[in-house]
């Protein structure tokens, strides 16, 4: 039986009349990477803020390391590392000083803090930049420094809010690489992300949130199989009403689930090749048929819809 690091039961957070998080329950186990996915305003960040004791739950249970977040914020925060979505570094200080100052907040002495800072700068490959001011760093370097800063007190739980948003692919892979190394070292991680690929790459389990609720939870691959099947057949339909009507009538019998996305129909199936064959033999008025593996993004859009969120 694995150790529970975070335990939430009927956790609710209201801001005035708005319910940001609505009676959600979940567990995060030691050593795993747990991801919160969801459109903007789904309640991901508020949930994270409650875990790191910067938002107080309105009702329900939230325990971190077995301690209630309402009564033990300092003791909980002692073992947390938090990486915000926005850059929150001390702009006036150098790269190394940012780490030193933080180490002190967690009770480390100066000598210990210096050793820790040097080791972490090597870990995120910023040793050569130790004496540089923050505005001289690129976005990717700042993010790596934020991660190093969050690790300064050897946290048992690392919390990352959109750790790679706004980074170029090289910088993103550098961050992923560090997070995987930390996972191998046994650091429990909770992250939010808008990138489904990131969730598939990093997370052992994900919770998909919408409107303050968890609408699905499980390992990414299991969610894919449960909600959209193993494969997706995309049909590109000619842009005339007649073709669309014909296709709409026929596909109902063909696939377990389907959805329209503009001029495309997505058919979810466990046996793509057979479905492609069926589509072809029916002679449907389609411009193209594409078979691909189903992804977490299909699950996400299936569960949260295609409507734009503000």
């Amino acid at each position, binding site marked *: 039986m694995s150790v529970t690091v975070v335990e939430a039961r009927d956790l609710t957070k209201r*801001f005035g009349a708005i319910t940001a998080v609505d009676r959600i329950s979940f567990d995060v186990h030691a050593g795993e990477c747990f991801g919160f996915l969801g459109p903007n305003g789904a309640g991901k960040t508020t949930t994270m*803020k409650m875990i*790191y*004791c*910067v*938002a*107080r739950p309105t009702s329900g249970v939230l325990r971190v390391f077995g301690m209630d977040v309402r009564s033990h*914020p*300092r003791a909980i*925060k*002692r073992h*947390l590392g*938090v990486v*915000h979505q*926005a*850059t*929150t*570094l*001390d*702009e*006036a*200080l150098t790269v190394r*000083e940012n780490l030193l*100052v*933080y180490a*002190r*907040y*967690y*009770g480390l002495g100066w000598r210990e803090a210096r050793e820790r800072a040097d080791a972490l700068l090597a870990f995120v490959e910023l040793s050569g930049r130790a004496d540089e001011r923050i505005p001289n760093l690129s976005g990717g370097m700042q993010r790596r420094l934020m991660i190093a*800063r969050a690790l300064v007190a050897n946290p048992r739980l690392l919390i990352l809010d959109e750790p790679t948003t706004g980074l170029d692919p090289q910088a993103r892979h550098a961050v992923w690489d560090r997070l995987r190394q930390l996972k191998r070292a046994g650091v429990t991680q909770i992250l939010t992300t808008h990138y489904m690929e990131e969730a598939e790459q990093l997370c052992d389990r994900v919770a998909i949130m919408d409107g303050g609720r968890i609408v699905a939870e499980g390992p990414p691959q299991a969610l894919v199989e449960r909600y959209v099947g193993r494969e997706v057949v995309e049909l590109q339909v000619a842009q005339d009403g007649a073709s669309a009507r014909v296709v709409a009538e026929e596909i109902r019998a063909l696939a377990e689930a389907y959805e329209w996305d503009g001029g495309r129909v997505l058919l979810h199936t466990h046996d793509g090749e057979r479905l492609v064959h069926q589509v072809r033999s029916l002679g449907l008025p389609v411009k193209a048929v594409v078979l691909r593996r189903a992804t977490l993004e299909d699950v996400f859009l299936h569960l949260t819809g295609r409507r734009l969120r503000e």
Partner: protein
Amino acid sequence: MMDVSLTGVLLFWQRNLLIFRKIFLTALPENFLEPILYLVALGLGLGGFVREVQGIPYVAFVATGLAASAAMFGATFECTYNAYVQFAYDRSYDAIVTTPLSAEDVAVGEVLWGATRSALYGSAFLLVAALFGVVRSWWALALPFVFFTSGILFSATALTFTALTPSIDLFTYYFSLWITPMFLFSGIFFPLDAFPAWVRDVAWCTPLYHVVRATRAFAFGNPAAALRELLWIGLLAFALLPIPAILLRRRLVH
């Protein structure tokens, strides 16, 4: 409800000291050189016409008053613009409250740091002013403590405004309606005797008036009068200190 830890407060104070060591040259003109300019222009210029005020050489009268205001400006700039930029633009306070430090530690640490700057700026100004022969008593050695105490008061009011203001643009109101009137009507440049009694009554209700009187009393060796003023300042400082802590918690923890 208030969650303050002495260790947390001191760690935050130490952080600000580290930052200050890197930026103090940029903060020097506003807080230190300006009062020196006032001292030279008024103390020596106007002092050429007005030889004595209340039995004190005019340059000494102005210098002691300006030391009190230099201290006030040191605390005020720290807890208005400096604090606001870190809070709203750098967002570094958001990061700090995720560490073992609480929002109250940040607020109280910031106020104590503002008080430290107050003591530094007031004392440094006084050292320069001492060259003009304005310090007449060993009691002047108590003045850093006076400036620290008054610094708590001015920092607490400034940080209260900082925690409430929706925009950095509104600090002009804080300065034009509160700091500048105090600077002009606290008896720094002239005694308030020429005004009707109610002006003196209003002035008595504002803190800088008492800091100026305490500074003069210590500098000229009248400790009994100085301690009365210090008591007024200290009690108010102590009473106001929790307010920015409560307000900053509301801005940082939801």
